């Protein structure tokens, strides 16, 4: 301080802010230091209850979830889990072509969906069966999609587990990874403008689910960046389950998970214990509140979990990970057993209720299974309809060609499974 200026003034003289437009809050420095992310502490993981279902911080206020709501969440997770077991086996028996289970991740889907309003719009990846279940997508609706029957909203066009329902405000699942993330940003922008145009309507948010592998796609980065620059009210929910099919996170990224990327895009971010359904619920509720704050902004949640299941029915994960690792995880921690312990600890759940509930769910799933399996396929015209709002002249000509070939080679085609048989094509004989 030999110059006789106060310390603060001295520092600002020494280190004035830069005026470069790309980083207006940066200050000049004379220290040649590179940022070394590997030396920084990892972002903490928020939790409310521990593996045994006990509240970690006894001094905090209890979370805003009634016992009734907690039991509903529990039953939703249980339903997904039981349906998964039945459908996985059914696929193994050849009764449907494909299936994907949620084992280990039921808590993320159910807990977050329960924190949203039913009018909030959802974009999902493919392992969010719990979101559909929480929103009231019925067992019949699940089964119709899985068996691609005439009651399937997707008209028998999609692979199993690619659910979607405008009625439930959940967009249809598409297989390409991460493509739904920029949609979520754009949809959130639409909701934001619509709320501004109709002030009487309650503001809505978009919630968008994806895995940590999908977050490597360009779509993820484009989406977070545009959502931040356009202040879109969207809650991005990353399910970090440790594996993208066989690729472990160590080979997927080198940063601090997916959460660190939110920070890079200037997005408020939190990491949460995905096996703790209450923590997931609480951070989603708070994320939703923040997303609507001050005209809207995106929020990123990284929910940590472990994919107990194989990636899909087409995958055998013991080819790339030890069975013991999976068994350890199953034994050590699981969103369903954790909530069960909590409920039992509170005296609102017991073995008797558990048995009765499991058996009732199993019965309901099998009944819906049997109903769906008996239904016909959708009418053949659904192969062409819906590509454009109206069939094109070219498509109509092709449908006549198809009818003609089926009629002339009747032994080569079986149309009896389809609603209306050949007449379901909706074109006359050529």
């Amino acid at each position, binding site marked *: 301080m030999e110059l006789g200026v106060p310390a603060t003034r001295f520092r600002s003289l020494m280190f004035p802010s830069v005026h470069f437009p790309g980083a207006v809050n940066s200050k000049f420095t004379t220290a040649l230091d590179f940022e070394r992310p590997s030396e920084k502490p990892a972002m903490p993981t928020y939790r409310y209850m521990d593996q045994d279902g006990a509240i970690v911080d006894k001094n905090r206020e209890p979370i805003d979830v009634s016992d009734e709501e907690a039991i509903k969440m529990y039953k939703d997770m249980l339903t997904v889990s039981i349906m998964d077991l039945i459908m996985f086996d059914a696929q193994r028996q050849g009764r449907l072509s494909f299936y994907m289970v949620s084992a280990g991740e039921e808590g993320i889907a159910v807990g977050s969906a329960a924190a949203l309003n039913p009018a909030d*719009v959802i*974009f999902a990846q493919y392992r969010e069966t719990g979101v559909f279940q929480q929103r009231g997508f019925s067992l019949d609706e699940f089964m119709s999609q899985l068996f691609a029957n005439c009651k*399937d*909203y*997707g*008209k028998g*066009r*999609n692979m199993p587990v*690619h659910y*979607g329902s*405008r009625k439930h405000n959940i*967009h*249809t699942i*598409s297989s*390409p990874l991460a*493509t739904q*993330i*920029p*949609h*979520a*940003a*754009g*949809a*959130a*922008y*639409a*909701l934001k*403008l*619509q709320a*501004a*145009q109709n002030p009487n309507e309650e503001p809505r948010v*978009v919630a968008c689910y994806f895995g940590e592998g999908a977050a490597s796609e*360009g*779509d993820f*980065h*484009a*989406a977070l*960046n*545009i959502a931040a*620059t*356009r202040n879109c009210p969207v809650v991005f929910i990353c399910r970090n389950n440790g594996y993208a099919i066989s690729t472990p996170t160590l080979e997927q990224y080198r940063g601090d998970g997916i959460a660190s990327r939110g920070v890079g895009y200037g997005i408020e971010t939190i990491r949460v214990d995905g096996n703790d359904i209450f923590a997931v619920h609480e951070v989603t509720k708070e994320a939703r509140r923040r997303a609507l704050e001050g005209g809207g902004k995106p929020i990123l949640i990284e929910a940590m979990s472990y994919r107990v299941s194989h990636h899909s029915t087409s995958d055998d994960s013991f080819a790339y990970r030890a069975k013991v690792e999976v068994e350890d995880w199953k034994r050590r921690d699981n969103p369903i057993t954790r909530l069960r312990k909590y409920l039992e600890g509170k005296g609102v759940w017991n073995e008797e209720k558990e048995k009765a509930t499991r058996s009732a769910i199993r019965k309901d799933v099998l009944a819906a299974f049997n109903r769906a399996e008996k239904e016909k396929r959708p009418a053949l015209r659904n192969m062409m*309809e*819906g*590509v*454009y*709002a109206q069939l*094109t*002249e*070219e498509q109509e000509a092709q449908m006549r060609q198809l009818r003609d070939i089926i009629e002339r080679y009747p032994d080569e085609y079986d149309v009896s499974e389809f609603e209306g048989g050949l007449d379901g094509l909706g074109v006359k004989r050529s």
Partner: protein
Amino acid sequence: MPSTPRPILRALLGRTTPTRTNNNRIRSYSTAPSNARLNHSRTPNSSSLRSTSKTSRINLFQSVNAALSHALSTDERVLLFGEDVAFGGVFRCSMNLSSQFGSDRVFNTPLSEQGIVGFAIGAASEGMRPVAEIQFADYVYPAFDQLVNEAAKMRFRSGVWTEGKEGLTSMACGGLVVRMPCGGVGHGALYHSQSPESLFTHVPGLRVVMPRSPLQAKGLLLAAIECPDPVIFMEPKILYRAAVEHVPNDAYTIPLSMAEVLKPGSDVTVVSYGTPLYNCSAAISAAEKDLDISCELIDLRTVYPWDRKTVLDSIRKTGRAVVVHESMVNAGVGAEVAATIQEGAFLRLEAPVQRVAGWSTHVGLVYEKFNLPDVARVYDAIKKTVEY
């Protein structure tokens, strides 16, 4: 993505005077020699779109601007965004629209084509009518997945839902229009000349439109914004500042997937769309004079799903066809048109269908005039077809 070298960008924008060489001739990479007889194109007759409204003499970028302005002012669901859109866009198509309609509805996006198109699809799927701009068609490829796997398939995969009052009939993305300037300008080289329409015409679910003139652009763009299907709207950028046309001040639409017979004829049908129509028109004038024939000229306007009937009706009359487009001939629109003609009018054909298109190469800077279909090549194709 628009890593356009500044001089090129400026020249494309037409802001600077082209460099003059010592002999005071304008240096251009793609001008025909002064003694060329054929390679001077002329403007084809535009349809006499009857309108009681007053008209203005405007060029193509101004007519795009007028269409966007009309859409934004009459439908609050319409949004306009893309790279550098807020200040008016590098081709000035969105000039003054941000100040007029507000930065919530007309705005810049970060530099990511897949982000722009993905964002637009999401907005459309929740009931908006977004018009997304890709700065150059050459840069649309990062958005290819979004267009092919998402925009094109969205209604189909979600299923058809009962029509509601709110208009959300399904989880489709109707109202989505992706605009992109395309085509050669004489000095765009590899990455400012492309015309990738045939990559999109292979994708059911998309509509691909290319206007030939200011009058067409306004009507087709307004139809695209109203359309319940996603539309790829390709604007030949060499025409942005080319000839002006009388364009009605009021709004009007021109139906999509409907071709237009620009000039009736009886001996040969020339099918094209976008910029080459001008060369076709010039070639037809020369051929009719030299060969004593009568040529029919058809503008497809919508390249997919395209108006097969108008084309087949014409071929059944003339018995000869030449298909002309700027993009590469291999697996191009001409292949589809030619195959449809031989399927639908085989017995009436007097000669093989000729294709005149870009060669199967890239647009090298100094080779453009040899690459894109010029008057001489179209003239020659007509001649060969007639003399077959």
